[in-house]
């Protein structure tokens, strides 16, 4: 049960991080959303054996984390949460694909391992970019940016309400589990026969609660559009942020920087 309370704390922590006032936080949400978009496209566009090409992409999250004053461990823990999923997808690559790819005097690495590692790196980088976007911008401002690029209102509303519903859901799960555990001292989990009724209860209670939240929103003039206020104009620095990073990502995409630096060093060595 403490894990559930912890999850709620975790979700809210991202919202709190988004309220900071660093250089990165002050960049226009649209510039950050679009930069993240380009980053994600470039990251996933690498082929499955192009592991070395992915390495320079790590500089983007490192620089953002440093400038936005985001606690590394907090973000790292959340990224690790998605790693089992990626490992689950790619775990059979090394077994199925055993063709030797990198042959060194002391070790031979198969193409399966390279593709698995490249999948893992891509997964971690994309999850990191998404988390950094949320923790430096905040959900409501992301919604504002999406609205500026003509994403339909209905999708944005779904996105925002789903995000809010998560905390409502977790709160109710916490309450139900607390009530259950207090009356079943010898049980470690929830008995299978009770799963159905507990899930049903959870659904009804969260719907009720979500409806009350919605009513309170309607009573304050909510008509299907979140107005976050403080609409900032796009400044030159925002344009520079987006274009600077985009050029960097495209250079990485078309030139294998790691390989170039490697051959340069070998050349110097010779």
């Amino acid at each position, binding site marked *: 049960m403490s894990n559930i309370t912890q999850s709620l704390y975790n979700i809210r922590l991202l919202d*709190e991080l988004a309220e900071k006032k660093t250089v990165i936080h002050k960049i226009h949400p649209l510039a950050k959303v679009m930069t993240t978009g380009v980053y994600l496209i470039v990251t996933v566009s690498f082929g499955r054996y192009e592991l070395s090409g992915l390495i320079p992409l790590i500089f983007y999250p490192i620089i953002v984390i440093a400038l936005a004053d985001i606690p590394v461990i907090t973000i790292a823990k959340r990224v690790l949460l998605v790693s089992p999923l990626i490992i689950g997808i790619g775990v059979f690559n090394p077994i199925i694909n055993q063709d030797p790819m990198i042959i060194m005097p002391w070790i031979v690495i198969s193409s399966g391992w390279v593709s698995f590692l490249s999948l893992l790196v891509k997964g971690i980088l994309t999850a990191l970019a998404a988390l950094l976007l949320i923790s430096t911008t905040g959900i409501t401002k992301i919604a504002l940016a999406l609205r500026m690029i003509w994403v339909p209102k209905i999708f944005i509303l779904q996105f925002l309400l789903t995000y809010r519903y998560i905390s409502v859901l977790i709160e109710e799960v916490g309450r139900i589990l607390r009530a259950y555990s207090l009356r079943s001292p010898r049980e470690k989990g929830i008995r299978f026969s009770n799963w159905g009724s507990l899930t049903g209860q959870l659904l009804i209670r969260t719907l009720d609660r979500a409806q009350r939240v919605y009513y*309170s929103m309607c*009573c304050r*003039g909510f008509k299907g559009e979140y107005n976050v206020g403080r609409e900032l104009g796009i400044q030159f620095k925002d344009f520079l942020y987006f274009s600077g990073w985009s050029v960097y990502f495209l250079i990485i995409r078309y030139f294998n920087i790691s390989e170039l630096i490697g051959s340069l060093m070998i050349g110097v060595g010779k």
Partner: protein
Amino acid sequence: MSHHKIEVNGLKYQYTDGRQALNGVNFLITHGQSVGIVGANGAGKSTLLMHLVGILFPNEGEVNVGDVPVTKKTLPVIRQSVGMVFQNPDDQLFMTTVYDDVAFGPRNYQLPEEEVQKRVQEALDTVGVLHLKGRPPYKLSGGEKRAVAIATVLAMKPDVLVMDEPTSALDPKSRRRLIKLLQGFTHTKIITSHDMDMVFELCERTIVLKDGKVAADGPTMEILKNRELMEECSLEVPLTLQACPVCGRNNI
């Protein structure tokens, strides 16, 4: 014509499960009145309040705010004029900071950001929690949450304040602070509560609901000291009006 008048005529409402929550409610609340609505659990208090702000619509009868009937078309006008404070402040606070939560209503009415800022400052200042404006709402105490919930409504500058059990789950000090705050408001106030002493202190008029009908309507003093009526409606005479448990002296 007054926009602060609330008129309920022959209001009937049945929930989809067949429960008749309101069964012909009539009353007229005029400008500046402070009215307590009391009744046992399930008497129809919250259902009645939801009709006043157009969350529910009557099966029969009508609700008028000023001279405007509460219908789907008139909701924007009604909700600007009638502000509702929910029973659980957690239902009302959903943004990431207190400031954004209080600004939510004014922003929905497309007010310029300078005006929004002014209203937020004023509302938070009125309820005495201006220092909390940068805090996340879920980190506040029960009393602070309630104060912010009231500020979210005040920022809309309503003519009528509707409150559902405002003192529930408050510690005695927070309760006293809230009562003093509400005493200072000049709005028309409609308050449902089981806190009979609060109703006694705040409201000059009381409506008693029983089984979805008005069982009594009149000056608070007369209604609340009527022991027979109170017991019949599963209520109790306020402690202030009961005999002192130590010396036995009666306040009435």
